[in-house]
């Protein structure tokens, strides 16, 4: 409606202006005639006096206020028309820009949601996490989990923080009051003050009380929203009723709000922190498993507050010098703590898509320069007829802006679809649920469109509307040097493009190589045809060594009898499925003066056949026998790494270690040494101690993994094995039913994801660079057709022409390659933490990149060069 009115208004005013000018012109003519001139002379005199009426009209129209809109409409019209004249160019450019802008927007959305947006807690900038820090830490994680005793002393003895709260992750079996529908779920223990500290109010019911937050407190539970909806159909009448947690009747006191998915969306319920400990453990200083959240006081700096806590910790350390107690306390902001695992990956991906977008921009710019060159005469003629340079630049810019707007629109749609996909398929992405497109993202995308449009359009527009109009008009297609400067411009852009591509390729190659390295990692055990599944015996029914041992014994017998099973064994945690318990110990034969972290090893429990079933080689001594069971359990088998680290490779058999089980020490004799297995393919090998699982000790062996080596498809054996478990204990749920292959795939999935994405971006960039190289060279050849014709006519050999053109095209590729390799020396430092088994200067990767790039460059150059060498000199000379 408005547009139409404006259009109507403009048309009317136009007609009005025309009439006004005409009437005044006629009047002038009449006056000249009255002065005695002939009709003919009067008319020409009047026209002379008036000057260029078209120009007057143009200038007058400029005084009208909406003229800029009219100009815009006209520019867009011209731009669209020019673009439609070569639809292939338009479609390819729009698609390339759509990919670039879409991918960048997607990554920005994720970076914003995950890294930049404040946590959804009250005044979340004031929240920090406190960790213990060992001064002699051997390069591992410097932020160590906190012992409950330490946390309690910090809280009672320091005043620098407004308050501090503790939490720990905790697994559990959830079932109904009649033990129906048991499921193994992830849960958390949180201290009573945790939720008030974070500023979280329950959606229904209430939070924990201080009285409940005691080791033997009244069993209560807070449900998360997802469990409340899923299992209890969102019915608030569940509050005050009971459910079973690890077979203990527990009262539901409240439901947490929908938005509360901290620290992980998979957490199903919260129990009071202190109830996850026994009376004695609640004040221990040697067992580390908790995380501590603290809120800063408004007027105290984080350094001062942390320093005070650190001083308390140092006093604790002095009191327990022989135990694993840290000296210092370190803190970091809560948000950094939550995103520490993905920050580098996200930033690397964002940089990668940024590079790709830049390459796409340069490519578009390059293509536009070529198009501008072919329209050089048109532009020159328009310039000499009075078209202002600004108008010409604006018109060319419109073209690139149009491409970018269309690409941006398409890219935004693409990013809407891909962002959710990315967030959902990124394993363990914290805050994945907060990833969504909002006003800021749209603004970012719009800014991106504008920036890319200007960047791609400005260089060609300025370079093609230079002042040498006359030279352009005079220049014939025969002159070989006329557009040398433009060719130089294009080659420079191409060099930058190739340098960026090399950087991307090197990063992608390194990431991909480390991914392959992980995929082919040797776990140190059998991978093929092995199925694993976990179960945890409820401690209420299985409270003695006899009961646990009997269950394990009968289960093994039953599974080994199954057809299709070649061997079965029990272990606490299967290789490759993540970290497990570690313990501090001392070697009796080599007493250490005070406690050091050096004497720490992972602990596993295993049955006698575990090593043979999993093909873990026995290196020295012997493995367990059926005799190491029940209370005759003071024997351990150690791994090769253990022997190398603590015995410098000497014979460990017959030596004794004293292991601290929380606050009680026991002595074990080393009976054997076996090969290493890896608990996480992204981590180095750790020293390991194996304890006999047939001891049946409820504390250490009630959680177990059954591993079965099968003769048929291992997944097909999962149901028969599960049936054996439920035959022994009908309500016992199993979880993590995975083949060893799947375990490997799971731990490498994130690395594979990132590596594949970067590789995809790099390949696309390589393709773009190849297209750019081909485009520039073809353009140069077309420019030099007549020159080549003359050379041929004067007797140049075709091979000479071929190498002349090839060298012309390969030079920017070489320079770009060198620049890119130099730059990647810096950028690969950024991804160092994402690399496994590869160095940033990996010669194989860099060699492969050089070879790939040169091959692609050669491929892109060979066709135009070959065409040039096949030119027919007569035809070339005739070509205008």
């Amino acid at each position, binding site marked *: 409606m408005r547009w139409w009115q404006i259009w109507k208004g403009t048309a009317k005013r136009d007609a*009005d*202006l025309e*009439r*006004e*000018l005409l*009437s*005044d012109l*006629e*009047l*002038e003519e*009449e006056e000249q005639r009255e002065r005695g001139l002939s009709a003919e002379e009067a008319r020409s005199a009047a026209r002379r*006096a*008036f*000057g*260029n009426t078209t*120009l*007057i009209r143009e*200038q*007058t129209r*400029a*005084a*009208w*206020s909406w003229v800029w809109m009219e100009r815009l409409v006209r520019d867009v019209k011209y731009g669209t028309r020019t673009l439609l004249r070569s639809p292939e160019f338009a479609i390819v450019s729009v698609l390339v820009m759509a990919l670039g802008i879409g991918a960048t927007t997607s990554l920005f959305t994720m970076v914003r949601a995950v890294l930049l947006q404040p946590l959804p807690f009250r005044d979340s900038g004031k929240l920090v996490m406190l960790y213990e820090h060992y001064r002699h830490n051997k390069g591992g994680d410097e932020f160590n989990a906190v012992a409950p005793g330490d946390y309690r002393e910090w809280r009672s003895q320091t005043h620098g923080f407004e308050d501090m709260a503790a939490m720990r992750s905790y697994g559990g079996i959830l079932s109904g009051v009649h033990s129906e529908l048991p499921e193994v779920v992830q849960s958390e223990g949180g201290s009573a003050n945790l939720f008030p500290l974070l500023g979280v109010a329950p959606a229904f019911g209430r939070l924990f009380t201080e009285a409940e937050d005691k080791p033997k407190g009244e069993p209560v539970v807070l449900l998360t929203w997802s469990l409340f909806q899923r299992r209890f159909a969102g019915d608030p009448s569940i509050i005050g009723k009971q459910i079973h947690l690890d077979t203990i009747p527990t009262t539901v006191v409240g439901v947490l709000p929908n938005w509360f998915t901290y620290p992980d969306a998979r957490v199903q319920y919260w129990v009071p922190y202190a109830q996850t400990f026994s009376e004695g453990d609640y004040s221990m200083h040697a067992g580390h498993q908790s995380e501590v959240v603290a809120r800063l006081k408004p007027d105290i700096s984080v350094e001062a507050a942390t320093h005070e806590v650190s001083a308390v910790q140092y006093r604790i350390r002095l009191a327990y010098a022989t135990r694993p107690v840290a000296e210092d306390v370190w803190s970091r902001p809560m948000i950094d703590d939550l995103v520490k695992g993905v920050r580098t990956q996200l930033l690397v991906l964002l940089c990668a898509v940024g590079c790709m977008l830049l390459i796409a921009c340069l490519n578009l710019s390059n293509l536009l320069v070529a198009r501008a060159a072919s329209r050089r005469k048109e532009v020159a003629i328009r310039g000499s007829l009075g078209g202002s340079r600004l108008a010409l630049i604006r018109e060319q810019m419109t073209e690139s802006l149009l491409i970018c707007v269309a690409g941006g629109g398409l890219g935004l749609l693409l990013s809407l679809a891909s962002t959710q996909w990315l967030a959902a398929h990124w394993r363990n992405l914290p805050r994945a649920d907060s990833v969504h497109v909002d006003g800021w993202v749209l603004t970012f995308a719009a800014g991106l469109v504008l920036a890319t449009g200007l960047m791609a359009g400005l260089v060609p527009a300025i370079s093609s509307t230079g002042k040498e109009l006359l030279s352009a008009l005079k220049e014939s297609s025969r002159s070989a040097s006329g557009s040398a400067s433009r060719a130089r411009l294009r080659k420079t852009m191409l060099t930058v493009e190739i340098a960026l591509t090399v950087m991307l390729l090197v990063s992608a190659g390194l990431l991909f190589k480390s991914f392959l390295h992980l995929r082919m990692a040797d776990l140190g055990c059998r991978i093929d045809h092995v199925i694993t599944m976990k179960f945890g015996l409820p401690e209420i029914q299985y409270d003695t060594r006899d009961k646990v041992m009997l269950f394990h014994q009968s289960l093994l017998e039953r599974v080994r009898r199954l057809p299709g099973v070649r061997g079965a064994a029990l272990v606490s945690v299967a290789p490759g499925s993540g970290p497990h318990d570690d313990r501090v110990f001392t070697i009796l034969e080599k007493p250490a003066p005070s406690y050091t972290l050096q004497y720490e090893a992972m602990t596993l429990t295993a049955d006698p056949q575990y090593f043979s079933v999993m093909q873990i080689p026995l290196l020295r001594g012997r493995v367990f026998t059926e005799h190491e069971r029940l209370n005759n359990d003071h024997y351990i088998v150690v791994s090769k790494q253990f022997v190398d680290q603590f015995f410098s490779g000497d014979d460990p058999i017959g030596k004794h270690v004293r292991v601290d089980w929380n606050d009680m020490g026991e002595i074990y004799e080393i009976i054997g040494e076996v090969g290493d297995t890896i608990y996480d393919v992204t981590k180095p090998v750790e020293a390991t101690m194996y304890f006999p699982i047939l001891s049946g000790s409820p504390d250490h062996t009630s959680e177990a993994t059954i591993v079965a080596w099968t003769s048929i498809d291992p997944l097909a054996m999962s149901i028969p094995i599960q049936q054996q478990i439920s035959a022994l204990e009908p309500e016992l749920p199993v979880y993590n039913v995975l083949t060893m292959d799947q375990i490997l795939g799971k731990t490498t999935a994130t690395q594979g994801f990132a590596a594949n994405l970067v590789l995809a971006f790099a390949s696309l960039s390589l393709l773009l660079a190849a297209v750019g190289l081909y485009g520039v060279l073809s353009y140069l050849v077309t420019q030099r057709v007549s020159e080549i014709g003359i050379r041929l006519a004067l007797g140049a050999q075709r091979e000479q022409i071929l190498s002349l053109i090839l060298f012309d095209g390969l030079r920017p590729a070489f320079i770009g390659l060198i620049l890119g390799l130099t730059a990647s020396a810096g950028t690969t430092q950024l991804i160092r933490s994402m690399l496994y088994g590869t160095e940033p200067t990996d010669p194989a990767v860099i060699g492969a990149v050089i070879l790939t790039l040169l091959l692609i460059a050669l491929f892109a150059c060979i066709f135009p060069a070959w065409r040039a060498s096949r030119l027919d000199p007569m035809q070339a000379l005739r070509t205008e």
Partner: protein
Amino acid sequence: MTKKQAQQRANLLQGTLDMLVLRTLLHGPAHGHQIGKHIQRTTNDFLQMQHGSLYPALHRLEERGWVTSKWEMAPDRNREFKYYRLTELGRKQLVIEESQWKQMAEAVARVMWPAAEES
């Protein structure tokens, strides 16, 4: 008149053209041709009206609401012309521009002929 002189005059005219047009219209409504002719005659042909600046100026003044226009029959010729008429806003603007011009002219005069000022 050399090209250089014409250039100088055009420069002089710039910025003051709006004022001259408004002042001309103080006598009563006029069409574009009359306005141009009037300025030219009053300055003894010193200021030659460029149509390329006059019409944009007129439309600019109208856009700002300082003049209104209407097609009217000319009293001497049997034809309609587009007559411009000063508005109340235009009158005020003329006073403003006039006083600004005066200040400007006095300031220039003080610099150029300091002796004349003293006597």
